[in-house]
């Protein structure tokens, strides 16, 4: 146990001593490893540990937050005293802490701490070798193994006392293809919320290495993408970044509660074409964005966000639930004890539709097929977004034609949702690290292939 129950209770009592109606102690101990292979040699191996306590005290929807990595009782009580000084109100009831409850939904078989550096090295070398062997044009490849184990304890004024452990394992491989004059890159970064057993049939490092190399080669031989407005098919998996950026962030209470989102006040209204349903599901077994409990100590949930085009739910954390007068959806997440939690996504995806890729291609005279997407960003106030196409092809007369590079998709979230006119059947998820006010957290994006009737494509060549 990171902090004794009695000390937790004393800290809560001190924090609530000036009338707060919400107190939460979040203790964390996280160990992470990273091993990087460049040019076939292990260049770095690092281990780091963070360990600290975050204390949140609130009255209504407004809060104060403090954190320290000093675990002794005096330091914690001093922090509680500093934070509670903000409030002055009648005392509220404090419920004694329940028995500690531990999250058990997502199982881990082989913990990273029991895995040697040699075993990790073997995994990254497989990815590296596969990338290098793919083609003579692959000139450089960097492969990294990453894992971290986060143990958290959450204690609340209402008696909740929760322990959760999240184990993440991932490889990240990038490959550079070059013809002497030009260089282009490709990458693949699969990850799961599980231990080293992930390499026993779920993540195949060789496949990842090949995939990174394949993308790099395609891009090296691609011509510059033309720019202008056109129909675009975005394929499955990481293509879901479009929904994550263009819509997901604007459905987080962080933006909605303050009216800073284009979707504020739109509950039960049509915000998308009726072929679009979307979910945020933090319960998918061992998925990258899953956890047993969220970072406010609530059991993770499956949330239907858009039902056949109608907005049915936002993603809401506890304090924003007070501000919005809507139920909390167990969406409170944070990078570490150094951040107060707020509403965040978990595994967010567009649900399966009815169309095939052939259906979608039919009738497109000239357009873009975005097979792989890169990252992007969005202004939540306006919904304006942009993201990079990592692997793209032109569509000519209903057929996938030549590869193009350097394309980006620029548009507006509210508009694009209405312009998604066909949704495919091949739902897949892609892993990312999502950065926002409560830090960088693992999230899955996802979707089947979707067709957008028109969107602005930014490219480097004339149409």
């Amino acid at each position: 146990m990171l902090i004794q129950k009695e000390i937790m209770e004393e800290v809560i009592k001190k924090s609530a001593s000036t009338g707060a109606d919400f107190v939460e102690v979040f203790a964390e101990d996280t160990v992470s490893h990273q091993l990087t292979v460049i040019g076939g040699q292990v260049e770095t191996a690092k281990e780091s540990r963070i360990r600290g306590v975050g204390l949140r005290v609130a009255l209504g929807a407004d809060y104060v937050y403090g954190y320290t990595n000093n675990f002794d009782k005096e330091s914690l009580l001093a922090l509680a005293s500093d934070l509670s000084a903000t409030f002055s109100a009648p005392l509220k009831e404090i419920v004694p802490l329940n028995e500690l409850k531990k999250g058990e939904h997502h199982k881990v078989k082989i913990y990273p701490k029991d895995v040697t550096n040699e075993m990790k090295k073997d995994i990254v070398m497989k990815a590296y070798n596969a990338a290098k062997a793919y083609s003579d044009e692959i000139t450089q490849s960097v492969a990294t193994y990453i894992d971290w184990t986060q143990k958290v304890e959450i204690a609340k004024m209402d008696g909740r006392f929760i322990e959760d452990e999240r184990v993440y394992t991932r490889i990240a491989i990038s490959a550079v293809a070059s013809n002497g004059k030009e260089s282009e890159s490709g990458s693949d970064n699969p990850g799961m919320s599980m231990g080293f057993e992930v390499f026993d049939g779920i993540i195949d490092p060789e496949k990842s290495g090949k995939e990174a190399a394949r993308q790099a080669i395609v891009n090296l031989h691609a011509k510059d993408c033309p720019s202008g407005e056109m129909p675009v098919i975005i394929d499955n998996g990481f293509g879901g970044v479009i929904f994550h950026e263009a819509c997901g962030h604007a459905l987080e209470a962080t933006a909605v509660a303050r009216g800073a989102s284009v979707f504020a006040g739109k509950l039960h209204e049509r915000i998308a074409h009726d072929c679009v349903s979307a979910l945020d599901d933090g319960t998918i077994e061992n998925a990258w964005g899953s956890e047993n409990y969220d970072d406010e100590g609530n059991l993770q949930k499956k949330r239907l966000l858009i039902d056949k085009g109608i907005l049915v739910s936002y993603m809401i954390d506890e304090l924003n639930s007070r501000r919005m007068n809507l139920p909390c959806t167990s969406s409170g997440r944070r990078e570490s004890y150094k951040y107060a939690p707020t509403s965040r996504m978990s595994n967010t995806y567009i649900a399966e539709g009815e169309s095939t890729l052939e259906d979608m291609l039919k009738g497109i005279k000239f357009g873009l097929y975005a097979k792989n997407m890169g990252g992007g960003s969005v202004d939540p106030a306006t919904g304006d977004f942009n993201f990079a196409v990592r692997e793209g092809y032109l569509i000519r007369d209903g057929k996938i034609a030549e590869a193009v590079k350097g394309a980006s998709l620029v548009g507006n979230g509210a508009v694009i949702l209405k312009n998604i006119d066909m949704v495919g059947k091949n739902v897949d998820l892609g892993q990312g690290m999502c950065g926002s006010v409560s830090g960088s957290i693992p999230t899955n994006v996802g979707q089947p292939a979707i067709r957008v009737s028109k969107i602005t494509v930014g490219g480097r060549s004339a149409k």
Partner: protein
Amino acid sequence: MEFKKLFDLAKKEGIEDIQVVINNGDSLQIEVFNQTVSSLQISRQSSLSAKGIYQGKMGYYSTEVVSESEFPLIVEKIKENAGIITSTDEVFIYAGDEHYEKIEGQFNEELKNTDIKEKINLTLAIEKNIKEKENVGYSEADYNEENNKMIMVNSKGLELKDEGNLAEAVGVAVVRKDNDSRTGFEVVMTNDFKKLDAKMLSEEAYNKGASLIGAKPVESKQYKAILNEEATATLVRTFSSMFSSEMVQKNLSILKGKVKEVIGSPVLTIVDDPFLKESFSSTSFDSEGVATKYKELVKDGVLTGFIYNLKTAKKEGVKSTGNGFGSGCAPINLYIKPGDKTKEELIQGLDEGILITSLQGSHSGANPLSGDFSLQATGFLIKDGKRTQPVALVTVSSNILNIFKDVVAVSSELKNGYNSPAIEVKKVSVAGL
């Protein structure tokens, strides 16, 4: 902490040399929304990071459990992590330089001692000013402050100390009018609390949002352009790795083999300035303990050299430039050296073109290997030296080396918070309608 104990233990366990950095800091964050303090955050923190040479390889370990009782674990982890390294690159623990520049004013006691109530009042005032303006749909203000003290010691006798603090005030205005919604954002960084001007900050944030109302895509073609300070800073930051000797040696920099060649226009000088005022990055030594120095990496358009750490310098038989950070090389404060005319004078001198006020998506729309970029931009058309139609939802594309060659003029001031001037360039391609 008695470091000699750690050094002795390390030696006994076969570690040749070991270095430890300890950071002790505290921070304050205030957020105001709707004239109430919606969040207030304080922190007190310490951390230790260690690296050591074992059998000729470097091993790393860092922890937030800062205590002498961790010494055996630190030694064990360094050995374990060094043991897997197969790279034959030489590694170093540095004994130190004779002279380290003293940077005045990096730590301002007065900032730390200013009462928290004053800091809250400032944040409230910024938000109030924004909120009271016309058509403001959302307003927010933030105050962030960090105080940090660090020590670096190693078994070769190096002992360095550094301390610094900085406050950042931020205003955010979302302006809604005519069915359009635009975000304005302004930031000021300083460790002199008196310099944080609520009125100026809120005006700037509001004007940035309000002036963009009605922004729309423009015709796709090549434009003469002025990139304001923020946009210029984004570009320079996005492509900064091309100046790293590590990237050059790994064949990942487009500047490889171009030293002493002309890579930019004669008005382009790019500096890495470790002593810049009001920058949290400024430091007199790098993470290897090497003294930092002011460098003109590009002088009057000619590439003069790269930034080095101990490892990359050794490979080329040159000296480290004091840019060893993490396990690689990084610039400290990289910026284009200011020119003669103000930004407004540059705008007034432009007959027809585009003013770019922000570039988004640099983490995905830019390729550091080729220098190509295609970034989402907002800004204004310029006609006869005046801002006209606001522009949004367009992408600006070029190659960073083309931008360098096409720089016509650099504005005369480094803007606070962005540490960059504005630049005028002959052409960029804009994709819109």
